[in-house]
């Protein structure tokens, strides 16, 4: 998948360095869609997270079980 944008700050990946952003993302869920820069709807739960872009779908991290099987 092409990552045109930084998932943390939303700026283009090729515009400057994102080392600090990449380091921070160890302890943060993504906030911006890396394909279109839309702000995602993020839900953090004790064991994981989901991040949903209205255009490009949902990402999941950690151990997240959708009880409704979505």
């Amino acid at each position, binding site marked *: 998948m092409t990552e045109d944008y930084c998932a943390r700050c939303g700026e283009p990946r090729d515009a400057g360095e994102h080392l600090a952003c990449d380091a921070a993302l160890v302890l943060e869920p993504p906030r*911006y869609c890396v394909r279109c820069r839309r702000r995602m709807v993020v839900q953090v739960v004790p064991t994981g997270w989901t991040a949903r872009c209205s255009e490009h779908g949902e990402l999941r991290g950690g151990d997240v079980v959708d009880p409704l099987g979505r």
Partner: protein
Amino acid sequence: MTTTHPTDAVGDGTAAVGYPVLEVARDQVLDRGEGLDEGQVLAVLRLPDDALPELLEVAHEVRMRWCGPEVEVEGIVSLKTGGCPEDCHFCSQSGLFSSPVRSAWLDIPSLVQAAVQTAATGATEFCIVAAVRGPDERLMAQMREGVAAIRAAVDINVAASLGMLTQEQVDELADMGVHRYNHNLETSRSYFPNVVTTHTWEERWSTLEMVRDAGLEVCCGGIVGMGETLEQRAEFAAQLAELAPHEVPLNFLNPRPGTPFGDEPVLPATDALRTIAAFRLALPRTILRYAGGREITLGDLGTRDGLLGGINAVIVGNYLTTLGRPATDDLALLAELSMPVKALNATL
């Protein structure tokens, strides 16, 4: 910075060097169970780094003597994220800042799932949090349904953190079976206007009084490292001691992008550890919980030091909008330190 200087106990240069405030702490807090006052806490916060090992040792002894070896484990979840009308300058969930956090509601099945997964770690506490000034009818309805569903699905104590409450809402939460209510004062009364301008410290205090009077356990702490002075940190500890909450969650500022405090420096680990020990010495019998920010402030080694310096409770797993250490890492550390996880029947 003014620091507290060591003294030679017998004056001949051969005796062990000690710090007067730590001698006071041993007598007053460790032996008699009486917390340090504001001036004494300030003296602790001014101790130099080379006094830190001795300070942590005293704070740990106080914790073991007046609280015991058990550690209370909790998970937290955001029921309603973002879009908050308040302007708490540390918070990425305020709708008034250019934070990337968007509004979201957690559905009831996912809330129950989070409670079940939290209980599976051995946690006895599950706190439901909403980013609001105070709950509206929609949120209270969601709480009614959610708390009932959790209680039907899993044995875990349910706590809540929904902002400022009316007396009717306090009573309703108690009726639902919510056993503990979190409402942080966040910082000292004198520094609060630098942190929040859309409501007052006194409004928060008023909610806490209602919660306590209704018989719910009071959970009240704050965030260290928001630019407050050591004097204001000591003032905050004294104000918490006056409130005498059942639990004090201790956060360290995790500067969030887009918030007014987004460019604040991360608190040095030594300052964080001094604060943990100072708060333990001010609150010898209180549950003192590691909350947000410990990962970036203390790291793995500092987390251990805090558990051996006054902390006796942890939030495991993720926080509301940021991620934490895996619960398994914290549980393994507690086992290594021979600190048993508090059992559910011990909390009822």
